[in-house]
């Protein structure tokens, strides 16, 4: 008895998809839509538009799940070169928006090359380590460090310290997973701490301000401390069970800035309380755990490193966003993955998960 045709088509289409990841993604995205409805004051246009973003993101995910990882390997070097070229272009001829040079005009459209670098760098590093797998030595790690630092410094110069640090983190995960020796890690950690004062002096006023504000938000309650104070109030006043969906006063009275995007977690925490937060963290943990399992089962070094970088970067975004909203990290422009409104973030996250699925499903395929 063969299953009906329709079911077989579905099975064929879904053959590279991962059930665990799909379940986690859908649950988180559904949560996102619920929060977004409240955060946008019941603006269904915004919810529909996010639904559309999700559809696109799923399509992209499906596409990448069907691309065998070794094709991606071939893309790594050219993509990284293009991204570096664009970053240089920004440094030379970028548009200045809000005092930072982040955008590049390409005739018809404007792009932010640092977004592309978020994918290109881990891909590049994974490719590099995979290439020198047989004979990894210290020189390779130094080269990897240079590959990492070049775009990071360019982005930090824009200046966009938040993105630079996040991209650096993704690169560091790759290097760490590639087996950088503990002695060097310890040495780097010590010299990193030692160079903090120097870095501080190199920071822009607004960057220093953000960090100072984190230490004492009340110092500048109407300026840079405002975001932190208001979002912390939202989280704290949510209590154990929250104020209820659509009932967050901080949210609905416009006290939370950017409440559909970067600060959407404040809305969630206010309306669903500690209970909701624990559920949300559990959902994220579930997704991350599944991704880690896929990573640990990956067959080639390239696959492992790429999967690890994707998983860890995803976690980093989640942590940094929640940390920023609850006032333990400085305010950096990082959306909460899968929850925040916005197409770019959603598509790039799902693209990552598509790659993870591809890595997982293609290792079993006999023709690989």
């Amino acid at each position, binding site marked *: 008895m063969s299953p009906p045709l329709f079911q077989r088509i579905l099975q064929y289409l879904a053959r590279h998809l991962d059930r665990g990841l799909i379940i986690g993604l859908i649950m988180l995205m559904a949560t996102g839509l619920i929060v977004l409805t409240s955060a946008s004051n019941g603006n269904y246009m915004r919810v529909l538009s996010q639904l559309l973003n999700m559809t696109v993101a799923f399509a992209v995910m499906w596409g990448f799940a069907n691309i065998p990882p070794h094709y991606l390997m071939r893309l790594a070097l050219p993509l990284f070169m293009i991204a570096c070229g664009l970053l240089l272009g920004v440094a030379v001829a970028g548009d200045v928006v809000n005092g930072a040079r982040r955008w590049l005009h390409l005739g018809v459209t404007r792009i932010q090359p640092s977004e592309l670098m978020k994918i290109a760098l881990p891909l590049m590093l994974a490719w590099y380590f995979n290439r020198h797998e047989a004979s990894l030595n210290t020189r390779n790690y130094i080269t990897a460090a240079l590959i990492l630092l070049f775009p990071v410094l360019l982005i930090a110069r824009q200046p966009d310290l938040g993105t630079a640090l996040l991209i650096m983190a993704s690169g560091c*995960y790759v290097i*760490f*997973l590639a*087996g950088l020796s503990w002695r060097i890690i310890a040495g780097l950690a010590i010299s990193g701490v030692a160079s903090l004062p120097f870095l501080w002096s190199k920071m822009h006023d607004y960057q220093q301000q953000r960090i100072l504000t984190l230490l004492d938000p009340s110092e500048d309650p109407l300026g840079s401390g405002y975001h932190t104070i*208001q979002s*912390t*109030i*939202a*989280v*704290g*006043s*949510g*209590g*154990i069970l929250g104020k209820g969906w659509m009932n967050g*006063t*901080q949210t609905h*009275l*416009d*006290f939370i800035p950017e409440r559909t995007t970067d600060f959407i977690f404040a809305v969630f*925490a206010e309306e669903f*309380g*500690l209970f909701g*937060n*624990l559920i949300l*963290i559990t959902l*994220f*943990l579930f997704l*991350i755990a599944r991704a*880690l399992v896929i*990573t*640990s089962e990956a067959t080639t*070094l390239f696959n*492992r490193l790429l999967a*690890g970088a994707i998983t*860890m970067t995803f*976690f980093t975004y989640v*942590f940094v966003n*929640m*940390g920023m909203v*609850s*006032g*333990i990290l400085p305010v950096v422009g990082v959306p909460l993955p899968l929850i925040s409104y916005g197409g770019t973030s959603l598509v790039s996250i799902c693209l990552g998960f598509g790659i993870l699925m591809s890595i997982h499903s293609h290792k079993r395929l006999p023709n690989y």
Partner: protein
Amino acid sequence: MPKQFINAGVEIRDAEQELQRFRYRLGILSIFILSLFCLLIIRFIYLQIFQKEHYTTLAESNRISVLPIAPHRGVIVDRNGIMLAHNYSAYTLEITPNKVEDLESTINALAAIVEITPRDRRRFKKLLGESKRFESLPIRNRLTDDEIARFAANRYRLPGVEAKARLFRQYPQGDMFSHVIGHIGRINTREIEQLSDDGRLANYRGSDYIGKAGLEQSYEQYLHGTTGVEEVEVDSGGRAVRTLSRSAPISGNNLTLHLDARLQEVAYNAFGDRRGALVAIDPATGGVLAFVSKPGFDPNLFVDNIDPQSWTELNTSINKPLLNRALAGTYPPGSTFKPFMALAGLFYGKRTPQQAISDPGYFMFGGHRFRDDKEGGHGAVNLFQSLVVSCDTYYYMLANDLGIDAIANFMTLFGFGSKTGIDLKGEASGILPSSEWKQRRFKQKWFPGETISVGIGQGYNSYTPLQLAVATATLANNGIAFKPHIVNHVENIQTKAKTVIEPSPTRDLQLKPEHLEAVKQAMIAVNKEGTGSRAFIDAPYSSAGKTGTAQVIAIKQDSKYIESQVAERHRDHALFIAYAPTEKPKIALAVIVENAGFGARAAAPIARLVLDYYLLGKLPKQPATDE
């Protein structure tokens, strides 16, 4: 194990070793992930369980804003209902400095749409210095409909600028009442402290203004009203989203005065260009009928903080328009003191009405010659004549006979030298000289020679026109003194209940009727045949008066005062006290005209105009003239 042996095996083992190492590192990262999530959870527990109360309070106060609703200030009307201080609604343009990027260019852009005078700009700058950046401050008041329309059309270009409907205080009578009604002004820091000390600050949360002078100041508690409260839910921009509860403000009480606005006008205009003061009192109640200090100033200038230039002009003017002459100006009473001296003589038994002295034209004391106005003297002078012709020698002698302390004791009864307790702030006490006073003031003993000129209202004597008017009213009222008061009654607009400020007799001087009669008859004669007769010629009512001339600079007793040779500001002050009708006095007054020379010539005609209007309803055709 030798390497070269099992090449392929090494490769496999290496791969497996690699995987094990990778998984080990991945395990470390998993612990890293878990610990960071734990950190987040600890933070959430801290915020959402332990700090919940704190943040809930913060969220509530974020959300609920208690907006004060300022009450309407009570109006002030005269005894006939003529409006002296009222409110009207008008649009004002206000700028919130911290919402504006470039204040100067915003004001310039605004000036292209509505008229903004240099005075407006100066006033705004002054306000800016005194206020917080997030307070909205008026740049231009009382916009016309046309201007409002033009502003509305250009609003989008001017963020931080708003048109607001506001109630404005207006004093329609202008400078005529500036020293009685006073004015309100924006509340300053000192007043906030004072209100806070009095526990009244909460009631001023929505108020921008407070009474600064005059009745506006002294009746502040009645006029202000009770601030209402509106509890609204606001968004982070402070915009009200919806009203949760509301308690309406209670308007301030209205004041109805004893003051007669038309009488005040007659009196004010009677001064012409002269400086001076006039206080008219109803002797039977102490109600103040007219209270003039000239020159006045436009109190409307002060309502929204006066601009520095106008302030400097008023403050440095030689005419001292800001000085409340009636209340705080002190002058020697001159001969207007004599009726009271005469009463003192009778009271202490030093004189009888008939007893006459011989006046050689001077009084010698301690080798010093105290000169009388009339050369060669008035001859035989009794009490009656001493007042009618204003004989100085009679009073030099009387003062000497009484002694300074007896004079002081008696004059205290009439209220000389002490505050009258009128319902205005800033009253001066004046100086009633006594040996005790001199000891206190100069640490010196009193010399009997100093008593002599006190008898004719010179020397250390110095009283306010108000004190003189109260003393005259007390005399007219047969020695029963009333506390002067301007407000007749306070009306609660809500309940329509009127609280009448009851006339309060302060004391009965227990003067003997025959003594009073002697002095009064003499004062009636002053206006009939004496120094006041020219001013009161053909008056259809009977009046009593006394002229006075007060020296501004001391002139040697041997030399003669020639008016034309003395600089205008050094000329004598002209004084006059009067009451009428004599049978049952309805009005008693005191007038002083600064540097105007003889009281008979400058001050008495003003009194005549005032009495004519008050008793006959006759309006004067022109100011009282010297000739």
